[in-house]
């Protein structure tokens, strides 16, 4: 029998599996409609809408100060950065220039948020690959950042610390010292992450060459953040379009050209080192200044369109506000990084194993409420 005859006689049947909306690997209510042939994936179709809260519509109802609070609930792991995005857009519309102090504090807190988010990703990534211990190592260190945040703004997840015009209140007196302590601590702990997971043979085999995304595809699908940078697409907004205090710090953009899950992993590990270096450059001399520029109690943006983009832990978050000059925006649109990154999934997951899909999704670092607003 020739190979072709064998293939026609041994016909295998494709079948359909719902992965999610309640599935441990999805980290939320993401439903993937999988078409599988044995272990091999033929098609992946993400189905959204299980955690849709119509945040953009709610923004049209709310005042500009209130919109900030809604953005916490999008990408809850980089809530500070989401808040910053809205604040920057509103400030752009009002033509307010915030003080240096506010800029530096926003940058430090943004980088701490990025660190916390990447730590959580690292823990969960290990767990998706079956190494359950990583989760607890990551949470040990993330807890310290959360404590710093809690001291300053009273919350650990939905921060609401940035307001249009500056900060809600000044940083806690302990903030500088505790942040420094955390950086010294984490500089000794991050190599531990590498020792536990990065060099492991099984881990490398699971990650290298899996979920290959070329630079062209990354650009055409609109992928941003570590996903794009793992494919060699320099997309860091902090470099390309510096906001807050990113123009005065010196850092390298993490860039790898392999385009596989391992490259995306390395991008995030490198970003953690860079974030620490950014914080160290700023923490010692936070300039004095106003913590809040005076704004009217009811902010009215002038008629027109305003757009600002920031780099969250997951990629480019764009905030588009269309104002008609009233106290509410006419239309708000968030360009969330997760949504564009998710669109790549079907393209790179055809023909891989189920385990590879899980590894790829882990390396994409999805936060479902960010994809599905």
């Amino acid at each position, binding site marked *: 029998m020739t190979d072709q005859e064998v293939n026609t006689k041994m016909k295998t049947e494709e*079948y359909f*599996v719902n992965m999610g909306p309640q*599935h*441990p*690997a999805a980290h939320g209510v993401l439903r993937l409609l999988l078409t599988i042939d*044995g*272990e091999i994936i033929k098609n992946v179709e993400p189905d959204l809408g299980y955690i849709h809260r119509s945040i953009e519509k709610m923004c049209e109802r709310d005042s500009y100060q209130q919109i900030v609070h809604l953005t916490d609930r999008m990408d809850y792991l980089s809530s500070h950065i989401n808040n910053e995005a809205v604040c920057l857009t509103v400030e752009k519309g009002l033509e307010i220039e915030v003080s240096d102090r506010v800029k530096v504090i926003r940058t430090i807190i943004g980088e701490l948020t990025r660190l916390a988010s990447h730590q959580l990703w690292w823990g969960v990534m*290990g*767990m*998706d*690959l*079956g*190494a*359950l*211990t990583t*989760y*607890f*190592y990551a949470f*040990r260190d993330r807890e310290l950042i959360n404590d710093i945040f809690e001291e300053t703004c009273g919350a650990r997840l939905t921060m609401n610390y940035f307001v249009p015009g500056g900060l809600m209140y000044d940083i806690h007196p302990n903030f500088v010292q505790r942040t420094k302590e955390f950086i010294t601590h984490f500089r000794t702990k991050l190599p531990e992450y590498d020792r*536990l*997971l990065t060099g*492991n043979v*099984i*881990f490398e*085999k*699971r990650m290298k060459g899996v979920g290959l995304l070329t630079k062209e595809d990354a650009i055409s699908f609109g992928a941003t953040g570590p996903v794009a940078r793992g494919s060699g697409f320099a997309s860091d907004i902090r470099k390309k379009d510096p906001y807050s205090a990113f123009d005065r710090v010196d850092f390298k953009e993490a860039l790898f050209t392999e385009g596989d899950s391992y490259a995306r992993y390395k991008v995030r590990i490198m970003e953690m080192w860079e974030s620490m270096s950014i914080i160290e450059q700023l923490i010692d001399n936070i300039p004095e200044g106003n913590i809040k520029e005076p704004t009217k109690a009811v902010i009215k943006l002038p008629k027109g369109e305003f757009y600002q983009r920031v780099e969250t832990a997951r990629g480019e978050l764009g905030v588009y506000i269309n104002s008609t000059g009233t106290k509410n925006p006419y239309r708000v649109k968030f360009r969330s990084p997760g949504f564009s990154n998710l669109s790549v999934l079907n393209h790179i997951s055809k023909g891989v*194993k*189920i*385990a*590879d899909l*899980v590894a790829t999704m882990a390396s994409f670092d999805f936060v479902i409420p960010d994809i599905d607003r």
Partner: protein
Amino acid sequence: MMNIPLNIVRTVHDWIFSIMPEGLATFTEWILIAALYLALFAVVGLYLVLLERKVAAWFQLRLGPNRVGPWGIFQTIADALKLVSKEIYDPVRVDKFLFKFAPYLVIVASLIAMSVFPFSKQFQAFDINIGVFFLFAVSSIGVIGVLLGGWASNNKFALIGAMRSGLQTISYELSVGLSILTMVLLTGTLQLSEIIEVQRTGGWLILQGHIPAIIAFMIFMIAGTAETNRAPFDLVEAESELGAGFHTEYSGMQFAYFFLAEFINMFIIASIAVVLFFGGWLSPFGITEGITWFPESLWFLVKVLLIIFLMMWFRWTFPRLRVDQLLTLEWKYLLPINLVNLVIMAIVIWLNWTI
């Protein structure tokens, strides 16, 4: 002077035979021994679960269970009570007979294997002359239960898990078998007690057989971990991919059977390793050789627990392999190395290079 546990057994034996006719007495003894092993099984299973949780906690910067009883020693008993009291639920359109039958197959296979364990010289239910072979053969029946359970569940994730289990066990059975064969070549017997007695004079087999024995031990540990479906080979119940794998649809005590069987299988693999490589109940360097009252089974348990700790260490450190990597590891690396190792062992014995 015999040791104390044996005296009790002898007293009970004499007493049973004095009050009953011979046939009935033998039958009663069978039942008593079975009940004893059942109790032993429950204790071993439950406390291995607790040990696993404690070991996991130590690896993960946690405390582990510490509420129920001192150091949480009654935690797993409380869990077992909860599982017993839970409803046994079967989902719609399952194959009812197979669905209910599968857990028993798994647990019974593990239990039968336990009967030939040489806990000590006197504490062994059957000392048959093909002990290793029997242990190995019986413990493999469990996979049928896993396959049936996954198949009957009417759940695609369970089915994928069951199929993975089938291919994994069939593949790694070869490596386990061949590494055992390597050691049997050295001892020249399949009887567990004799394998241990060989080591009384010549030192533990891992030392006697030096290089090929060490290779065989490493292969046995890898394949044994795969055989018990534990991480890094836990593809069968890869929770991040398949939910809970083959036992997704099981609840209550049926689930507990699958769960406990995993730990009993780990105990079986560790016991085989101890018997074949580390001298079974023999003390290291014969330090308690002269002490007659010293329970030899203690050494057996200590060694088994050390091996089990090693397996738990694997589980809480390594990521999981992918299914094709699992097969590559077995068919392209372990199996050829094993075959060559068998030949090396034969040469070592032929040239009398054993220590």
